């Protein structure tokens, strides 16, 4: 079709992006307010409400995080198999909503709290792939980057509002735990209602063959999917955890430790501002190229942590680069992945790519933590720079034959 390829030079994305993207963005915004309210509250709750050791909780949390990552794969597969993305996503969002009310019920039991958190994680794991598949199925291929950009922008706005809501409750209402959990539940419920009533299941894509476990797993034999999964995993292994970056940044810059708490806000602000424009750029110049460029930006941020620049200049530049890294990679990877996977296997395929990246990052954060027992921050960062540079070269060589455009 010659006509289809000669679209106008300047396209207005607002008029072209389907309502589903904005509706799902609203669901994520509300759900993230709910989730981040609890995340911001948990430390205070555990330490003062329950007098529980944070270390004790941290160990359980680490175990559950690893265990529930696998549920992403299940969520993706079931959504494809039944061709009911919306139902599976509703189950995931609903499960997470209900857990907010379970916190006060389990009280000061480490296993109880761990179990509730695991259920919350399970909900998040189950819903992520079907939701991203719905975004991709509703959006024309040439606007995928923009669609995921808009979704991640809305999602991050929610993540920024959540902690504010918690501290507003604690400072102006009460430090009792129930109100935080009940208000968090209300936001989660609003998200579930928006999903149930304002999002439509994408029409079935007339599958050529039936979806089966064998075909879903067989996605890894598709060259593009396999290479993307490996490449995202390798880069994930070379990605230091956010917390690690912030701690090093605070030390290297020499600013007061009080600012540590605000650094994630800086990264998130840049992320939400840049996600949509970078998504649009990715649609024009190549989504894989944008994902790769995002990691080059991250490498620059790591290099700065070694460098001679200190003070507020370093903080501003590093947080800007860190936010740009997320904006160029988080939604863009899904947009790129969506172009490689046929519609009837979309959720399974996206879940494979996501799980690979998430597990790699988990391994990396444990590895860097372990290294600190023996190495200083400086050495660890130098190693991080080396590993990321090597990973970029390896990924460039791996992807070069596949992605010409």
């Amino acid at each position, binding site marked *: 079709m010659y006509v289809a390829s000669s679209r106008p030079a300047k396209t207005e994305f607002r008029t072209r992006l389907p309502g589903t993207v904005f509706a799902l963005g609203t669901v994520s915004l509300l759900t993230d307010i709910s989730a981040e309210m609890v995340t911001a509250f948990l430390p205070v709750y555990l330490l003062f409400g329950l007098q529980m050791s944070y270390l004790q909780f941290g*160990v359980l949390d680490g175990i559950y995080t690893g265990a529930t990552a696998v549920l992403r794969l299940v969520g993706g597969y079931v959504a494809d198999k039944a061709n009911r993305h919306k139902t599976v996503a509703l189950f995931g969002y609903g499960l997470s909503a209900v857990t907010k009310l379970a916190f006060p019920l389990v009280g000061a039991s480490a296993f109880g709290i761990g179990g509730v958190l695991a259920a919350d994680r399970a909900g998040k794991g189950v819903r992520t792939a079907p939701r991203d598949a719905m975004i991709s199925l509703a959006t024309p291929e040439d606007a995928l980057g923009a669609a995921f950009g808009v979704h991640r922008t809305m999602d991050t706005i929610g993540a920024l509002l959540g902690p504010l809501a918690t501290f507003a409750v604690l400072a102006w209402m009460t430090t009792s735990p129930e109100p935080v959990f009940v208000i968090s539940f209300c936001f989660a419920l609003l998200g579930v209602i928006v999903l149930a009533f304002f999002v439509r299941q994408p029409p079935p894509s007339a599958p050529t063959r039936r979806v089966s476990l064998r075909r879903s797993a067989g996605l890894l034999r598709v060259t593009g999917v396999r290479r993307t999964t490996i490449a995202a995993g390798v880069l994930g292994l070379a990605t230091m955890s956010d917390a690690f970056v912030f701690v090093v940044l605070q030390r290297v810059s020499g600013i007061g430790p009080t600012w540590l708490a605000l650094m994630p806000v800086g990264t998130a602000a840049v992320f939400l501002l840049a996600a949509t424009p970078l998504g649009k750029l990715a649609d024009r110049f190549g989504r894989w190229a944008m994902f790769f460029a995002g990691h080059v930006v991250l490498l620059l941020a790591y290099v700065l942590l070694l460098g001679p620049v200190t003070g507020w200049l370093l903080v501003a530049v590093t947080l800007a680069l860190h936010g740009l890294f997320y904006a160029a990679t988080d939604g863009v990877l899904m947009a790129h992945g969506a172009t490689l996977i046929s519609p009837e296997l979309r959720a399974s395929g996206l879940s494979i790519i996501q799980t690979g990246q998430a597990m790699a990052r988990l391994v990396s954060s444990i590895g860097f933590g372990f290294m600190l027992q023996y190495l200083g921050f400086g050495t660890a960062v130098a190693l991080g720079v080396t590993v990321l540079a090597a990973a970029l070269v390896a990924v460039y060589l791996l992807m070069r034959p596949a992605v010409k455009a």
Partner: protein
Amino acid sequence: MNRVAVGVAALVAVVLFGAGYVVWTINRPTATASSGGASGTGLRFVDQSDGRNRVDELAPDGTRTAGSLRCQRVYAAAGTTVCLRLAGLGPSYEVAVLGGSGEVLKTVGLPGVPSRARVSASGKIVSWTVFVVGDSYAVPGGFSTRTGYLDLRTGTVVESLEHYTAYIDGTPTKRDNFNFWGMTFADDDQTFYATLGSGTQTWLVKGDITRGEVRTLRANAECPSLSPDGKRVAYKKRAGTLGAWQLFVLDLESGEETPLPGSNGLDDQAAWLDGSTLAYAKVPQGQAPAIYASAADGSGEPRLLVSSASSPSPR
């Protein structure tokens, strides 16, 4: 269309419920606090019964007086009070140091969740520890701590001890995963005891703020609290890697360690109410934290001082 109408109605219902709940919570009558047991010396503590975190006082005869200060963690000595508290939406917590008539002498923003607070016996040195969460570079979901102090004689604020020289069994050692918590000062306002942590190891350390150094005294001892006579240190000690903590008292001269029976499961920096009584918070199974007192010589079971309360401090 019908579907949209139902959706909108459901959204409105949830918003109305949420708003109603907020209004009801704000106007809910607060429970009257229970009075406590007689304690010999009396104490100050943070009330945990109604979510307002008032600092109340318990007189020696058990009469309870409600205070107006609100803190997550409090401690007082020689007319100086330290209060770790919420500070609105910005950097969300602060340490406030108050003088004898309740006037604020100094506030410092805190980088994390308040954990421990102390004032030296002279009232001149104030120290605190916070948990920095999300700072999970060691294990996913892990934590690190920042311990700082304020010297009221000079106005010097040290926000973290991480630049101190640490001697582990006499050898100067530098690790980037060192964390300090739970400072307690000696009468010279210079020597202190604290916890040094690295990975899963912890040590009781003795330090000096003028020299900026700490030396390990023994392993597996956290949140020390120096006795008024300066001869004993109370600390919590773990049974096994993730076992429950129990309170112990160490005689610094003889090195003899005495367990305090029945203190298992506490997580607190104990406070010496007098030369022979230690108070600490502990969570009875399935309930709000409560303050107990134990005899420092290890005799007898703990006594419940105040229920629904934490952060005991001498008056």
